[in-house]
């Protein structure tokens, strides 16, 4: 009898949760009501689908069930003179379920979650909760925050949306560029948190990357004419393509130059590169597109030695125009080392030391350049400085290995 495995229901949950919450938020006029209704509908699905089979449109089934449950619930409350419930019922009657392209629904929800009146941590948590369907527990563990803290953060953010009447709509043309920047920043932050985990459990972190890529794909589908949306997706895909080669079986970090390029995911590389080419044709560059292009140049090189570093330096020059920050300048210096030699690069890195003294990567890069210049005692000191500035296990063990591989002083 049982035809629908639990895994299939979970897949539907992952794929459709955000859409269902988005539609129900509009229909019911409130996020809390929508979440409760959608969760009830999925609970009902786990009861009915295994015996009844998967409905022809699982998403439609979830949305209709959620709507009906919410209406039942509101009727009960309304009959007890609950004026909020009465108001919500009137709202439901006025809101048709099938109206306009569904794609707009999730887009509205994204812009609400990433509204500038909410703090960045609140934006991130809401986006993962409402669009990704991650549980509070999962989000708390991914960001190494105690669960009650994360629960509190979500409750507070949702209360603010309701009390301050943060709108549930796609921003107007004039506001769109700023608002979109915030959305992209949230997605990229989720990706980076998973990719360069500042510490903590690896598996959950990889889930964050997958979730960010999924959000990136969704944005690209919803806003296909925004080149920076495509740029961010390409950037994440190209970074993600190297995941398998980035760490050893033991979890140690492998630098780009030392990675086994045969282990790069060719499908992701192809997809990322195709998007980068598409962006080039559109000729409306921006920081995400340029970073994607830098990654595409790396992906083009069959070996580390055949990397077109001159082009990478040029791309970093372009990136600095959009994003003149010392971390970008530091990465540019790494490329300069391959074009003009370590001496020139070291001077650039040293000029950034004032701004980036607390950043472990600056010291690790200095160490590497000093080592290439044959100045090993200084290199050792630089690696030591890097070690005292990071708590990430993989990075620490990589630095320790590099340090011990240096010829002993004396």
């Amino acid at each position: 009898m049982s035809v629908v495995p639990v895994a299939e229901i979970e897949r539907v949950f992952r794929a459709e949760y955000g859409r269902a919450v988005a539609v129900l938020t509009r229909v019911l006029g409130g996020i809390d009501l929508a979440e409760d209704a959608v969760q009830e509908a999925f609970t009902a699905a786990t009861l009915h689908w295994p015996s009844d089979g998967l409905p022809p449109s699982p998403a439609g089934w979830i949305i209709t069930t959620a709507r009906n449950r919410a209406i039942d619930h509101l009727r009960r409350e309304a009959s007890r003179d609950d004026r909020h419930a009465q108001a919500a019922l009137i709202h439901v009657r006025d809101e048709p379920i099938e109206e306009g392209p569904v794609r707009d629904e999730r887009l509205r929800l994204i812009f609400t979650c990433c509204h500038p009146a909410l703090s960045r941590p609140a934006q991130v948590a809401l986006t993962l909760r409402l669009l990704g369907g991650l549980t509070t527990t999962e989000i708390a563990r991914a960001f190494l925050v105690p669960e009650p803290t994360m629960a509190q953060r979500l409750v507070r953010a949702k209360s603010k949306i309701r009390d301050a009447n943060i709108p549930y709509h796609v921003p107007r043309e004039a506001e769109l560029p700023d608002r979109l920047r915030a959305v992209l920043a949230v997605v990229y932050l989720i990706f980076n948190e998973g990719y360069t985990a500042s510490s903590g459990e690896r598996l959950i972190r990889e889930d964050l990357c997958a979730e960010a890529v999924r959000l990136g794909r969704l944005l690209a589908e919803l806003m296909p004419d925004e080149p920076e949306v495509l740029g961010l997706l390409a950037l994440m895909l190209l970074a993600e393509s190297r995941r398998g080669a980035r760490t050893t079986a033991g979890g140690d970090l492998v630098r780009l130059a030392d990675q086994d390029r045969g282990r790069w995911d060719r499908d992701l590389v192809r997809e990322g590169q195709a998007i980068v080419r598409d962006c080039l044709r559109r000729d409306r560059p921006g920081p995400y597109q340029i970073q994607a292009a830098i990654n595409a140049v790396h992906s083009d090189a069959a070996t580390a030695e055949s990397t077109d570093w001159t082009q990478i330096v040029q791309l970093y020059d372009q990136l600095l125009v959009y994003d003149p920050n010392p971390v970008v300048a530091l990465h540019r210096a790494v490329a300069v080392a391959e074009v003009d030699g370590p001496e020139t690069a070291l001077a650039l890195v040293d000029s950034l030391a004032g701004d980036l003294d607390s950043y472990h990567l600056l010291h690790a890069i200095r160490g590497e350049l000093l080592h290439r210049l044959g100045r090993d005692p200084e290199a050792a000191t630089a690696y030591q400085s890097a070690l005292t500035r990071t708590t990430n296990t993989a990075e620490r063990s990589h630095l320790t290995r590099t340090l011990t591989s240096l010829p002993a002083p004396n």
Partner: protein
Amino acid sequence: MTRYLLSIYQPDGPPPGPEIMDQVDRDLRELNGQMKAAGAWVFTGPLHPADSATVVQRRGGEVVMTDGPYLEGKEHVGGFWIIDAVDLDEALEWGTKANRAIGLPIEVRPFAGPPTS
């Protein structure tokens, strides 16, 4: 419609001279006119400096008055608007215009209670 309080956070001390204040006054009159024309304006309240305030509280069953504002600080609310807006975005637009007119931070805060019609 939601009702919002727009508070102006003003540094303590003497206000700028007429070369600045005259322009601010003109900009504020213009802004109030815009708010009224848009149907957003409910009330405006410019305030005397915070050191003109008196705090009333109860200590051990006795009412005690203290001279000066309740909170110590370098800035205090120097005036406010009450406005109606369809949503926070619209309220923030008025907040942005107020900030532009006065050059001081504006806090936008929703009123509790049912929405105004």
